[in-house]
C-alpha cells in the first residue's frame, strides 16, 4: 500500500475510535443529569445509584475520548499538512471555539465526578448540566468544520490559494443546521440504545430490579426520542446531499444513469464496470420523491460526473444501507416502546420488548460509524469537495505504515481494557435486594 492509503487508514481508524467515546461524552452526561435530577426530586435512592454508577462508567469513557481526540488534533497536521495549510485559517474558528467547550467540559466533569461529597447538590447537578451542554457544543463545532469540507464556502480560490477568507461564512456553510442536527441526534440515539440494551439484558434475568428499571427508562427516553426523530433528520440530510453534493447522492443510491423518476434502491450491489446496481429492491420513483419531494424530479447519476471524481459506490452504498437499516429498526422499536408506555403508563419492560431493545443495542453505534463512512467516503476523492483532493493533502513523510500499526495496536488495547472495566462494573450492578430503598 502507498503512504496515502496508510494515511487514510490511520485517520479513519482514529476517528472511528474517537467517535464512539465522543458520542458517549455527548449523551451520557445528559442521562446522568436526568437520573440525578429524578433522585433529588423523588428521593428514590435507586435513581441516585443509577446516576453514580453511570458517572463511574462515563469517567473511563471520557478519559479515553479526551486522549483519542488529542491524537486527532495532532494528526490533522501529521497526516494532512497540505490540507491544514490550505484550510486551517478557513475552518480553524470552529475548532478554536471547540477548545473552549473542551475546557468547560473537562472542568465540570472533574467537579461532577470527584465532587459528590464536596459541593452542594445544586452545584453538582448544575455541573452535570454544564458537561452535557459542553459535550453537545463540542460536537456542534466539530460538525461545522466537517460540514465545510462537504460544502466549502467563505473563500475564493485564486492560483491554488484561498483568498478573501470569511471565517464566519465558512463556519456556517450551507446546510450546517441539517448536519449538526443529525450528528447530535445520532449521539443520543446510539448511546441511549446501547445503555438501554445493557439494562434490558439484566432485566430479562431479574424483572423487578428497580435499579435497572430506572436506568432503562432514562436511557430509553433519551435514546428513543432521538431515534424517532432520526429518520426525519436523515431526510433533511439526504435532501441536503442531493442539493449540494449530487455525486455523493448518486454513489449513496447506486444511481449510475441520470434519470427522471429515479427509483429508490434498497440493498443491492453497485457494479462500477457494468454501471448498474444489481439485486436491489427498487421502489419506483422513490428516490426522486425522497431527494426532491417530487416523483418526477431528475436525479443526476454518477455518469454525469468525470470518472476520476467518483467516490467508490460500492462502499458508500453499502454503508448507507447499514445506517438506514439500523435507523429504521431503532425508530420502529422506539415507536413500539412509546405505544406500550402510553397504554400502560410505565416503562415498557415485557420480555419481548426487552429482547427487542437488547437486539438494538449495537445498532446505534453501527449506524453512527456507517453514517460517518458514508460522509467521508462519499466525499472522496476530495478532502474538500470539489476544491482539494485527498491525494494533494497528504504529508510528504514516508513510512506511515509504522504509525498506523502503532496506533491501531494502541486503540485495540484501550478498547479491550475499557470494555473489560465496564463489563466488571456492570456485573457489580446491584441485585434486586441490594437496591437501596
Amino acid at each position: 500500500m502507498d503512504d496515502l492509503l496508510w494515511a487514510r487508514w490511520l485517520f479513519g481508524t482514529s476517528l472511528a475510535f474517537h467517535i464512539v467515546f465522543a458520542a458517549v461524552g455527548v449523551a451520557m452526561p445528559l442521562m446522568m443529569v436526568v437520573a440525578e435530577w429524578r433522585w433529588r426530586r423523588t428521593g428514590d435512592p435507586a435513581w441516585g445509584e443509577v446516576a453514580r454508577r453511570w458517572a463511574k462508567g462515563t469517567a473511563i469513557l471520557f478519559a479515553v475520548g479526551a486522549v483519542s481526540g488529542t491524537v486527532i488534533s495532532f494528526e490533522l497536521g501529521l497526516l494532512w499538512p497540505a490540507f491544514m495549510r490550505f484550510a486551517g485559517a478557513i475552518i480553524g474558528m470552529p475548532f478554536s471555539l471547540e477548545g473552549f467547550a473542551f475546557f468547560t467540559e473537562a472542568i465540570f466533569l472533574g467537579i461532577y465526578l470527584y465532587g459528590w461529597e464536596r459541593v452542594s447538590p445544586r452545584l453538582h447537578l448544575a455541573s452535570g448540566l454544564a458537561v452535557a451542554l459542553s459535550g453537545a457544543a463540542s460536537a456542534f463545532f466539530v460538525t461545522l468544520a466537517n460540514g465545510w469540507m462537504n460544502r466549502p464556502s467563505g473563500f475564493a480560490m485564486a492560483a491554488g490559494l484561498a483568498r478573501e477568507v470569511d471565517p464566519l461564512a465558512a463556519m456556517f456553510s450551507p446546510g450546517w443546521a441539517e448536519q449538526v442536527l443529525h450528528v447530535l441526534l445520532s449521539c443520543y440515539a446510539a448511546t441511549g440504545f446501547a445503555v438501554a440494551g445493557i439494562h434490558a439484558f439484566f432485566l430479562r434475568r431479574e424483572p423487578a430490579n428497580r435499579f435497572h428499571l430506572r436506568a432503562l427508562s432514562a436511557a430509553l427516553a433519551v435514546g428513543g426520542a432521538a431515534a424517532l426523530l432520526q429518520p426525519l433528520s436523515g431526510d433533511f440530510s439526504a435532501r441536503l446531499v442531493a442539493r449540494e453534493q449530487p455525486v455523493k447522492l448518486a454513489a449513496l443510491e447506486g444511481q449510475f444513469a441520470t434519470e427522471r423518476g429515479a427509483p429508490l434502491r434498497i440493498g443491492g450491489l453497485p457494479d462500477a464496470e457494468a454501471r448498474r446496481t444489481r439485486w436491489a429492491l427498487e421502489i419506483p420513483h422513490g428516490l426522486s420523491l425522497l431527494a426532491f419531494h417530487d416523483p418526477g424530479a431528475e436525479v443526476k447519476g454518477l455518469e454525469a460526473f468525470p470518472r476520476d471524481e467518483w467516490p467508490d459506490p460500492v462502499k458508500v452504498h453499502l454503508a448507507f444501507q447499514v445506517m438506514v437499516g439500523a435507523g429504521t429498526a431503532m425508530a420502529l422499536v422506539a415507536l413500539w416502546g412509546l405505544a406500550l408506555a402510553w397504554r400502560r403508563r410505565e416503562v415498557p419492560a415485557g420480555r419481548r420488548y426487552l429482547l427487542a431493545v437488547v437486539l438494538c443495542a449495537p445498532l446505534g453505534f453501527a449506524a453512527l460509524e456507517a453514517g460517518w463512512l458514508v460522509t467521508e467516503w462519499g466525499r472522496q476523492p476530495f478532502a474538500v469537495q470539489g476544491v482539494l483532493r485527498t491525494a494533494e493533502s497528504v504529508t510528504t513523510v514516508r513510512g506511515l505504515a509504522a504509525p498506523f500499526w502503532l496506533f491501531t495496536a494502541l486503540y485495540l488495547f484501550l478498547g479491550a481494557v475499557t470494555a473489560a472495566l465496564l463489563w466488571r462494573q456492570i456485573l457489580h450492578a446491584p441485585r434486586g435486594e441490594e437496591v437501596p430503598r
Partner: protein
Amino acid sequence: MTPAEILGAAMLGALVLYALLGGADYGGGIWDLLASGPRAREQRALVERAIGPIWEANHVWLVLVVVVLFTGFPAAFAAISTRLFVPLTLLLLGIVLRGAAFTFRTYDTPRDEVQRRWGLVFSGSSLLAPMMLGVVVGTIASGGRGSFSAFSLLTGLFAAGLFAFLAAAYLAVEAEGELREDFRRRAIAAGAAVFLLAAATAAASAREAPLVFRGLTGRAFSLPLHLATGAAALLAFAALFRRRVRLARLAAAAQVALIVVGWGASQHPFLVVPDLTLESASAPRNVQVLLAWALGAGAVVVFPCLYLLFRVFKGERPFSAIDRARDGP
C-alpha cells in the same frame, strides 16, 4: 501589537499555563515512578488525589495551543507537523498512555499487582511525554529538521526535570507531616538536578543551536530575564529550606513561567526557526483578529470556571503564597 503578535502572546501564555498545570501533572507521574521509602504508598496516593480531578482540564491548554496555531498560523502548523513527525507521534503515545493508564488504575481492582502494573504505564508515560515535549521545543528553537540531537534530548530531560521539580513543590503544599518532608526534600533534589540540566542544555546550545544561544545571551532582555529566573530559583530553594512551602510553590511556578517566556522571547519573531516568523506564517488578518476576539471571549468564560475547579479541590486559598500556622507540619 499586530494581531499576529497578540496570538503569539496568547499561545505563549497558554504554554506557560500548560507547563504550570499540565506539566505538574506529568511531574506527579514522575514522582509516582520514583516513589520510595517507607511512605511510597502514601506518596502515590497523594499524587493520585492531587491530579485526579484536574488533569483533564489542565491538558486542554495543549489542545488550545494546537488549534490556535493551525488557525492563526497554518503554515507553521504544517511545517512543525512535517518536520517533527517522530517526536510528535511519540508525544501522542505518551499523552494517550498517561491519561488512559491513570484512569484505568483508578477504576481497576485495588489489588496490588494490578495497581502496580497500571502505575508503571502511567508513570513511564508521564516521563515520556515531557521528554518529547522538550525535544519538540528544542528542535523548533534550534531550527533542526531531523529530530533527536544532543541539544533536543537535553531539552527533553530538562523539561522532565523541571516538571518534577514543580510537582514536588506543589505536592509539598498539599501533603502534611512526614509526607510533606518527603516532597520538600524531593523538590530540593529536583531543583538541583534542574540547575545542572540547565547548564548542560545551555552548553549544548552553544555548540548545536547557535540561534538559541544567541537568543539566550545576546538580546536586550536576556540579562534581566536571566536575573529574574535566577532570583525565582534562589527564592524557591530558600523557601524550601525554611519550610515555607507555599512561598516555595509560588517561586517554583514563577521560575518555570519565566523559563517558558524566556524560550519564547529568545526565538521571537520566529515561530519555526529559521524560516517561519509570526508574520510570514500568518493566516489572513481578518481571521487572526476574529480569533483574538474569540480567545478573549473564551477566557472570560474559562478562567472563572477554572478558579471554581481549583477552589473546590485545592482548598480555600488555592493559589495563596502565604504560609499560615495551620498549614505547617
